[in-house]
């Protein structure tokens, strides 16, 4: 935290010490005063539109008259004197509510927002009670805004927060405020799906029920009847903190969980709406084993309670050779660790694809081996120069994209600050800044959604992206290795500019990751960071990784999955345990099939998939909201997620299945998550911080014997929902793994930050209560933000040396039908789990192959025409999409879209035009072309 001089302000004539450079509203809320507001938002600051935060300001102690000012527009300066309680201010604030309520429909009893409504709270807070108008209310038509957000304009109080978030903060361009005077309307120009990947935040940003969560609405429950627990988003590698809510055994919604260093106030739509897979009807809820029926077809035999372990035990004990374990970057650290224990380190394979394995390992060696710091998301948002190397940031890690949208404002905002405009005066800053942007450079395979923000963009093959990166490093420090030969002109032009911008920045950040599938790109990014470090800068080096526990699994180690395939082919694997993984996503079909051809295959997962379908025994795994565990984000932050509810059937956390199997086969005994984490921390120093990522299960608030409830104290409580089974209320399940209880009883104060199941404070039922949990508005949560960074830069010690493997320039194939196939990413689609959620599935694009129109002309004149793509023996049938941003000789393959996986990219692929004899079927994957080839 910066050490700024504090100043003294007076509230009701009492002095308070506060930080300068903030508004009085901010100061009041930080000091714990209740002062109502609407248009102000802690992340978006002040505009002074709603007039709700009026207070009386006095010139000095002798001024008894004072004048009304808006606290949010009043700078907290030395000696400022205000009164919140002044009768005129109190009256005015209640009159503002009266005005806002003139046209409000007062439909709280049927409103989705009810009980969690900032407007309700503020109405109560100001004491406005009686309606004095007898005139008709104005009404509006509602719009269809897509599968995520419901629209109910009549409830609008015109605070302008939605446009300010959607357009100003998140860069959306398909939303707005229309018309004027008391007819202003917030929505789209015409009905249609909101295009921003952050649209779901409208639900939390809107202080009333205009924008509400459609997925919750689909099966509505009152918000105080949701059982909640702190959790972590599992849909990319950033580790955003979320609060899932459950009712009657199904997950109903996801909300943001504030973490000052990570996601702050927002999450992306993939994270908010991707939870649907948890409720899937296809969920595996019972263990089963597979037998061959009389006619040869497979039969699934459900195992009753208590029967699964003995069966699994007998399989393991009957193993006629090696038992190998295949971990998963989407499973918890604990599950991966216990599988490693069960199989033994020599037989544990990290469940990445061969290429991802190498990429993640390189990332980890850079982060753990060198003195370069990886920034938090908040620090990225504060960067004053950014170079993105090889990543489609919005597609692969949406919230990092949102952080970049803030980062490009840093420099111009600083300039505005110099001319006397405080940062919190948001609208004034925006008018001063206009279209000015700070330096952002992007080198990627194809256009990304944040390209328009960039000062310079280069699109090219991974080789050329890497070469650009190496050249920039060499331009910063001549001792860094420089590429031989020329760069493409577009890249060469950028080199001096990027180098200069990064060198003159005070907080430069380099972003790269696994997205380009290139070791060289990662090496180039590291070289730039190193060159900056050696020029005396403290650069941030941020890597995007594909999954929620990629880094955790990478740190845990294990062998390359390709070696497992080799082992299987050599019949060195008798029994294979696959943890939450579909090997067909990671390997080519022949490879996966070879691996799963082992004599015994046990799969632990929550949904059926190709791998599960080939297993001999299947154990039902808890999805993220049904279990407790730890994930390590791209920042190296170990974060605990908690079981929100006890799932039906025989579902258990994977780590618990594995702990039981371990114990049953004579291994160590682990009873609770804490046991596992303690062992992990002891065994591997890098995980030393894991136990401290959150309080242990026996943690209790000081002097109290009670746990922290998952259910709010406003919970409707006991219902007759199980009356057909038993009229007695079932005993709440016990939770041996956390200090949280499945009950509404318990400690009702403010728990440690990692245990916050909901933001609530007396009088603050909406998410705005988060103010009461922070040490200062917009700052860290009391006691520090949740999670524990496992990787901090070594202050001394061996410094990373420069990477030298600079690839030769990309040359397009002599054969015009050969293309370098590079992966493209989609917010909706590239993450396979979220794409299983029905509202997300609606927005997943259909598969395609992106070609430069010039190249495409060799095959077809028409966009949409179907071609056949052959990559290493796997064939895909895809319509062509023209994309002028793609380099000649390169083709973009939207990775992860239905049917589009199982190949490692980039790779050379052959494009064939339609020939007679092709079956007319929809685009996607074709199997068994017989051109198989191992890699």
């Amino acid at each position: 935290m910066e050490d700024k001089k504090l100043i003294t302000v007076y509230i009701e004539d009492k002095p308070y010490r506060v930080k300068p450079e903030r508004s009085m509203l901010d100061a009041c809320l930080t000091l714990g005063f209740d002062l109502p507001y609407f248009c102000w938002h802690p992340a978006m600051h002040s505009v002074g539109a709603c007039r709700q935060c009026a207070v009386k300001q006095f010139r000095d102690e002798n001024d008894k008259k004072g004048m009304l000012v808006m606290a949010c527009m009043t700078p907290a300066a030395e000696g400022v004197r205000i009164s919140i309680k002044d009768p005129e201010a109190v009256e005015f604030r209640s009159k503002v509510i009266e005005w806002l309520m003139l046209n409000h429909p007062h439909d709280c009893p049927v409103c989705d927002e009810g009980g969690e409504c900032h407007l309700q709270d503020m109405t109560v807070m100001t004491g406005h009670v009686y309606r004095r108008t007898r005139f008709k209310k104005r009404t509006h038509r509602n719009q269809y805004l897509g599968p995520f957000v419901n629209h109910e304009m009549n409830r609008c109080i015109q605070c302008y927060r939605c446009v300010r978030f959607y357009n100003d903060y998140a860069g959306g361009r398909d939303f707005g405020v229309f018309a004027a005077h008391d007819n202003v309307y917030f929505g789209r120009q015409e009905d249609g799906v909101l295009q921003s990947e952050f649209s779901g935040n409208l639900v939390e940003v809107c202080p009333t029920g205009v924008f509400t969560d459609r997925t919750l609405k689909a099966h509505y429950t009152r918000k105080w009847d949701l059982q909640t627990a702190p959790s972590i988003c599992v849909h990319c590698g950033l580790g955003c903190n979320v609060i899932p809510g459950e009712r009657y055994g199904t997950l109903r919604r996801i909300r943001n969980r504030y973490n000052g260093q990570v996601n702050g106030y927002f999450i992306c739509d993939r994270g908010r709406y991707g939870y649907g897979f948890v409720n899937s009807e296809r969920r595996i809820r019972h263990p089963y084993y597979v037998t061959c029926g009389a006619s040869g077809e497979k039969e699934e035999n459900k195992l009753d309670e208590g029967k699964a372990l003995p069966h699994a035990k007998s399989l393991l004990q009957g193993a006629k050779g090696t038992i190998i374990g295949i971990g998963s970057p989407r499973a918890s650290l604990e599950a991966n660790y216990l599988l490693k224990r069960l199989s033994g380190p020599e037989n544990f394979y990290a469940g990445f694809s061969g290429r991802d394995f190498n990429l993640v390992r390189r990332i980890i060696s850079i982060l753990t081996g060198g003195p370069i710091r990886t920034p938090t998301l908040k620090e990225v948002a504060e960067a004053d120069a950014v170079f993105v190397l090889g990543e489609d940031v919005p597609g692969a890690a949406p919230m990092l994209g949102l952080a970049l949208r803030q980062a490009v404002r840093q420099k111009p905002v600083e300039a505005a600050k110099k001319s006397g405009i405080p940062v919190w005066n948001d609208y004034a800053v925006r008018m001063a800044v206009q279209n000015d942007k700070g330096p952002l450079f992007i080198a990627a395979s194809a256009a990304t959604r944040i390209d328009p923000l960039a000062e310079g963009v280069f699109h090219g093959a991974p080789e050329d992206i890497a070469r650009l990166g190496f050249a920039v490093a060499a331009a910063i420090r001549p001792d860094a290795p420089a590429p031989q030969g020329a760069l493409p002109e577009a890249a060469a032009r950028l080199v001096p500019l990027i180098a200069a911008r990064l060198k003159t920045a005070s907080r430069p950040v380099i972003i790269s990751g696994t997205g380009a599938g290139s070791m060289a790109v990662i090496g180039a990014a590291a070289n730039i960071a190193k060159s900056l470090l050696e020029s005396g800068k403290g650069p941030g080096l941020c890597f995007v990784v594909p999954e929620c526990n990629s880094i955790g699994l990478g740190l845990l180690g294990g062998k390359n999955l390709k070696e497992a395939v080799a082992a299987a082919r050599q019949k060195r694997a008798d029994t294979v345990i696959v943890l939450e993984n579909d090997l067909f996503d990671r390997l080519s079909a022949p490879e996966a099939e070879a691996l799963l051809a082992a004599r015994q295959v046990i799969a632990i997962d929550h949904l059926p998939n190709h791998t599960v379908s080939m297993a001999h025994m299947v154990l039902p795994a808890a999805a993220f909201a049904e279990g407790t565990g730890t994930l390590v984000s791209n920042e190296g932050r170990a974060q605990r997620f908690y079981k929100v509810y006890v799932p039906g059937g025989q579902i258990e956390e994977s780590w618990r299945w594995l702990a039981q199997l371990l114990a049953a086969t004579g291994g160590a005994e682990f009873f609770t998550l804490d046991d596992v984490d303690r062992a992990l921390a002891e065994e591997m120093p890098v995980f030393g911080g894991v136990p401290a990522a959150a309080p242990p299960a026996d943690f209790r608030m000081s002097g109290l014997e009670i746990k922290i409830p998952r259910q709010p104290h406003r919970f409707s409580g006991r219902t007759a929902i199980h009356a057909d089974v038993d009229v007695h209320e079932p005993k709440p399940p016990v939770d041996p793994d956390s200090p949280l209880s499945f009950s509404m009883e318990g400690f009702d104060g403010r728990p440690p930050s990692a245990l916050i199941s909901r933001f609530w404070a007396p009088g603050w039922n909406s998410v705005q209560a988060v103010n009461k949990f922070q040490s200062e508005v917009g700052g860290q949560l009391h006691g520090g933000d949740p999670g524990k960074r496992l990787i901090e830069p070594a202050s001394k010690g061996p410094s990373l040396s420069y990477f030298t493997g600079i690839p030769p320039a990309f040359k397009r194939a002599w054969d015009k039908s050969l293309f370098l196939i590079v992966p493209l990413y989609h917010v909706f689609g590239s993450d396979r789990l979220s794409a299983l959620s029905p509202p997300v599935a609606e927005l997943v694009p259909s598969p395609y192959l992106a070609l430069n129109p010039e190249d495409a002309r060799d095959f077809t004149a028409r966009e949409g025409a179907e071609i056949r793509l052959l990559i290493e023996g796997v064939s895909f049938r895809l319509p062509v999409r023209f994309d002028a941003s793609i380099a000649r000789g390169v083709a973009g393959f939207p990775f992860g879209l239905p049917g589009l996986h199982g190949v490692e990219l980039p790779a050379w692929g052959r494009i064939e035009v339609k020939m007679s004899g092709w079956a007319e079927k929809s685009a996607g994957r074709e199997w068994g072309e017989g051109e198989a080839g191992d890699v």
Partner: protein
Amino acid sequence: MLSDAERREIEEDIKAYADRKMGCVGALKIVQRHRGWVTDEALKAVADHLQMTPDELDSVATFYPLLFRRPVGRHVILICDSVSCYNVGYEDLLGYLTKRLGIGLGQTTEDGRFTLLPVACLGVCETAPAIMIDSDVHGGLEPPEKVEELLKLYE
């Protein structure tokens, strides 16, 4: 799609501004001059031409009352309903016009000849009550029968 003439005029108009978006009100007025009102199709074409989204442009378009986002008749009668006109016979004039045209404020005659809309003070208060037909301002309409002669000018 914008017509060539529209495109040319818009390009000419935009020269006055540092940024294409700044010319958006002017551009909308140009298409309105050509088409009578700003159709959804025209809105989208202008947005495209100015590198804006339709949402961005309509947010501006709907703010300004002289940009018509709904169909109007061949001629638009804007009747000043502000205070100076009110004080010297606005109500009589409005009464006369609604009876004579058979339409109320915000409506268009069945033959599509006139649309009647209220407008803020036209700035000719010394000759109140006043109306504006298309782009011509006419004052001194007391008694209201005087408007008859005027209407004849707009077929």
